[in-house]
């Protein structure tokens, strides 16, 4: 009985997010979190308390209201401040994600080979 109960609850949990999930992050939040505040020390626009970042946020909001696409907005900022303003370089350069994964797997495999009883 208990066994079926577990299975039943598990299945509910598995399908639940499809029904209830709601994305709460607005486009503004996503974009301001991925843009660096160029005058701060490693903070994003979203986090930074500086006035400069405040002005940049107003521009960003305007861009969103004017219906610019994410790509257009990122292009605008990169053209002005260089690529370091994009804090998600892995979005345009997949190698940044794939290489560490490969490294980790190679490391894990070698480690496993070394310690395992053949």
């Amino acid at each position, binding site marked *: 009985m208990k066994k079926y109960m577990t299975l039943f609850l598990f299945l509910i*949990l598995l399908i639940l997010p499809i029904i209830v999930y709601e994305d*709460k992050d607005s486009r503004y939040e996503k974009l301001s979190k991925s843009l660096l505040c160029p005058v701060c020390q490693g*903070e994003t626009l979203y986090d930074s308390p500086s006035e400069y970042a405040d002005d940049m946020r107003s521009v960003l909001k305007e861009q969103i209201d004017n219906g610019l696409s994410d790509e257009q907005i990122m292009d605008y900022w990169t053209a002005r401040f260089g690529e370091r303003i994009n*804090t998600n370089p892995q979005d345009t350069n997949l190698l940044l*994600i794939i290489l560490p994964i490969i490294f980790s797997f190679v*490391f894990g495999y070698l480690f496993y080979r070394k310690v395992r009883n053949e």
Partner: protein
Amino acid sequence: MISSIGIVLSWIGFVNLATLIFSKKKNLFQTLVRVNLYIHFLLFCLLEIGLFLDDFSIYYIANHSATSTPPLYKFASLWGSLDGSILLWNFVLSIYFYLYVKYYRATTELYDIKIFAFIILFFNGFTIFSSSPFAGCIQLASLGCQDFTLLPFQDLVISDAGRGPNPLLQNHPLMAIHPPVLYLGYVGLVLPFVVATSELFNKYKDENWIKIAEKATYFPWVFLTAGISLGAAWSYEVLGWGGYWAWDPVENVSFIPWLLATAFLHSSKTQIKERTLINWNYVLACLMFLSVIFGTFITRSGVLISVHAFSNGNIGTYLLIGLLAFTSLFIFIGINNVEYFKSSKKVKNLFGRSGFFVANNIILSASALIVLIGTVYPIFYESFFERQLTMGRSFYDILVGPLLLILVYLMTFSTKVTKVNLNLKKWIIQNQNEINITLVISIISTVYFKASYKFVFAIFGSVLLSVIILKNIITRLKRTKLQGTYWTGQVSHLGIGIFTIGLILNVTQSFSNELIISAGDTVNFGDKNFTILSPYEEIKQEKNVINLPIEFDSKEKNASLNIFKNSSQQAISSPAVFRSIESDTYITIKVIDDDKFKLIFRENYGIFILWLGLATSSASFLTRVKK
């Protein structure tokens, strides 16, 4: 006067350490180690006295303290910048040297003393030859001091008011606690390095070194955990962005040794019990300390931009030389012991104790590797392409997040790990009730928070871990006392389970809004009403504070803007935080425009749960304290 005494005393310390390295007398070293501790304690006190007496003839004090600095922050100014923090670093090293000799030492040879003394001499040398916190001021700047001398008894010039510490460093009392606690952890990882290299210096003798190294790693690990947690708390309370971890380079280089030390605390156990992983343990024991030096090098040499960055022209090269020297020692001793390492036994049961620890070590080291790649990649990128690049939070979230979550799942098996393979079916039947409770909690919270799969994966694992360990503690508490390394592990794991619950709530549920208000307004944010009262200004010796009282639920708190005198930097915003177990409402002033205020309201979920988890993990040391 203080400047000259400090410089001369540093020299005496240097000579004392050199004597330790070259002396062959076996009965002398205990006295010299004690003398070394006294000297560094005196140096520490001396700089504190200088800070409290506002001795602005000292370069460091003129530039990093001011007459108007409040006493607590004068005290903390000792580690507010590079030169002073190296003094603290040396003092901590000397404390550990003394403790090592008193409690851990188990050899009759002198290699350990010589290696340890050499490490302290190396850092002590930096304060003598490159830049000393006692260096006297010989040329004034418009504010503070511009040029210094490293020689004692010179004609010094005195600036009339100091420049004062960085405003961020004098805005919260945690500044007086976080750095010393962190240093006790970070620098303490020198112990396993000294133990491993010195015990294996003359080729393998016995298995003793791994037990000592394990014991000696544990307390630095606790301090490192507590230090990182306090840093996160400081960031949350002071930086005004409602965050606690930014994957900032300096945070990363404290996290890499933490990951490696956590791995070592586990893998050393399998060597003690089953003689496996011997070679790997040697590598880890040394890598912890080498990663500390490497981390200090990349964050203090000025090659990286960070909230914590302070650098000085020479320290980069100096640390690089040290890194090379310590790494050569590590490799040299490793090569000498190849035969011994070959005697390491293979792991038989992949789902038994050794197998779990192997998985744990692979995941923790891979995480350390990824964090390292993310931290140094921008440096390589800039030198090859001459363009700058920023590694933001999402890089680490995507790569390290899932790895550490898998660890959370593995930890659920930690209540009863046996040498033989675990029978998963049996395990599920034994823990059926806990699994069902967890499923119910996960379902309810998923519906309540309208959550995603990321949330479900994290919340199920972390709740299951917490529930299973809590039950284990409660049922076994009736029969045994919570003592010994087994319970250290259990309490730490419980803390990590609780922490992960808080973390996933925070990451997935928090939201914020920017509002422009004036005094007297009532603001609705997240179904709560906040009343804005009239602002008032407070004039203190070191700063002016604009306070904006905000009322919620008949509680009144100030959001404020601190404008520091003596500082060209912008004003610092202190938040008003209304706390509850589920979430904090965190309000900061962004801009003041005449009588209008631009406020940022943030609803930060899970913060209390997160601190509770970290505190539980740090408190695991109680199980190791002998009664």
